[in-house]
């Protein structure tokens, strides 16, 4: 009996250690996203503002020369901003867009810069769509499939529209434990699924949904 218990414990721990190939995130990002529209009502891209957590901000700022202690200008941070967008390319900028269920592609970011607001570093960048997309239902997801970065919507006004036709309405979908109000919104979205082709895994992403009926 003891043997068996011991065996079971060993199996459990080995399962734990090998089955889930995961570490926990070491980078936390809270983000604001603005969906950009052209005059003709089509979506042209997304403008992101990503705020890093204080520990990662300190790490990223390590060794960056700056004139004034505790202050970094946009110019001083320009090389780091360049490094950021360059290395994000490999990860598709953690941004995945669909127009009426069809996957969209982004081109390389424009208008990117870093801002330091003690204690956090904020990365601003615009991701233009390869081709502007007109869609009744636009879905933009922001997440890291490989868990190293934890993305979360900013608390205040995380999603906005820029130049969108008046009938467009933006909502967002939280992957974190939703509050009662958010739960209500979630259940409404469930009743009217916007993207029937979306796979199970995507429900865990930070989802931005824009409906232009």
């Amino acid at each position, binding site marked *: 009996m003891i043997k068996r218990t011991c065996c079971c414990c060993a*199996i459990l721990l*080995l399962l734990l*250690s090998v089955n*889930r*190939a995961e570490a*926990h995130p070491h980078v936390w990002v809270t983000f604001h996203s603005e969906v950009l529209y052209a005059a003709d009502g089509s979506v042209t891209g997304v403008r992101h503002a990503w705020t890093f957590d204080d520990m990662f901000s*300190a790490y990223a700022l390590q060794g960056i020369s700056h004139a004034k202690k505790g202050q970094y200008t946009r110019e001083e941070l320009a090389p780091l901003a360049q490094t950021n967008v360059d290395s994000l390319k490999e990860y598709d900028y953690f941004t995945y867009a669909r127009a009426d269920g069809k996957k969209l592609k982004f081109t390389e970011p424009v208008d990117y810069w870093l801002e330091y607001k003690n204690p956090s570093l904020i990365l601003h960048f615009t991701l233009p769509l390869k081709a502007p997309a007109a869609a009744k239902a636009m879905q933009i997801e922001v997440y890291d499939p490989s868990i190293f970065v934890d993305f979360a919507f900013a608390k205040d006004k995380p999603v906005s529209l820029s130049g969108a036709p008046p009938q467009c309405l933006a909502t967002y979908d939280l*992957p974190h434990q939703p509050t009662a109000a958010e739960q209500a919104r979630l259940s409404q979205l469930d009743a009217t699924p916007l993207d029937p082709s979306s796979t199970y895994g995507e429900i*865990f992403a930070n989802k931005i949904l824009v409906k232009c009926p």
Partner: protein
Amino acid sequence: MTRSRAVFLTALAAIVIASAGGVASAWSAPFGEPHPATNLSASGLSGWIFAEQAAFYRSLSGFIRASKEDGAAMWGLFGISFLYGVFHAVGPGHGKAVISSYLVANEETWRRGVVMSFASAGIQSLVAIVVVAIAAVLLGATAKTIGLTVHLVEIVSYGLVILIGLRLFYVKGRGFLLACRELAWISAPALAVTSGRGSKILPLLTPRLGAMTVRGGQCLVNGCAGHEHGFHCHDDHHESAWGHAHGPDPAELAGAGGWRRGLSAVVAVGLRPCSGAIIVLIFALTQDLFWTGVGATLIMGLGTAVTVAAIATLAMSARQIASRVAEARAGFGMLTLRAIEVGAAALIVTFGTLLLAGYMASEQLWMFTG
């Protein structure tokens, strides 16, 4: 005994399936893995551990800040660092899988297992401290340079893991083949004789007949397998003869060769610094609290060591049960034992390869810093 054996075989199968599952999930990671912020996927215990360690990690910055104002907050920081270490080590990347497999493959003693766990965690903390002290404090290097350094150290570490695994696999693979031959000989001594080199069973009255006489004379003790340097049996009738630990003989353990044996595995595993520790150290540095950060890092290592030692102990207990089963049943039991050893060695190679190839999750930071 049959039941125990069945239990152990089930365990072995479970481990193999589990590791296969781990490999599969690691491969499907780019799009298959759900978002970490949810607990829906990471059910039960592993989800809880996942959430806890992230919470501990995030609270570290607050404790470091508080330590600046109030020295007493340092104790809170150290406490959280310890807990973070304990929980973090349950995740991958801290080599406990490698250490456990190594211990299982080598039939090491409990004491050695614990010492190896603590030594590798200690080395890991020290590497993080040394990297930050040299790169950040002395040279004022950027995060990019530090990331690159860590990456290089990682590659060396994974490479060493593969080498250790391959060496073990070779040694244990030979042991397995020898056990196979032994089994063939024991089960049908009157009919067949094993060939000297292959595992082919030859009929009697071939020119190889002499081999039977030689081996029969030397290896009649049940549970005694072939030694890699030739066949011989020990008087103490233990079940393994690999020139490794025969039992908790203090004199032997303390000997120079004694501790040196596990050193390669300890170094290979301990070389890779924890990204979390490096970030905490650099954050502490910006708060002018480098030494507090050093203390927190060392205590994190202590927490990690406790978990690794616990897991290694369990792996070794399972192995000991297998040994006892094998002792009672020389033929098939011994073969099973050898198979487990080969499996453990193969697991080390697999872990090393997956880590090196980047398929298995390690802690990457260069997605923002290059």
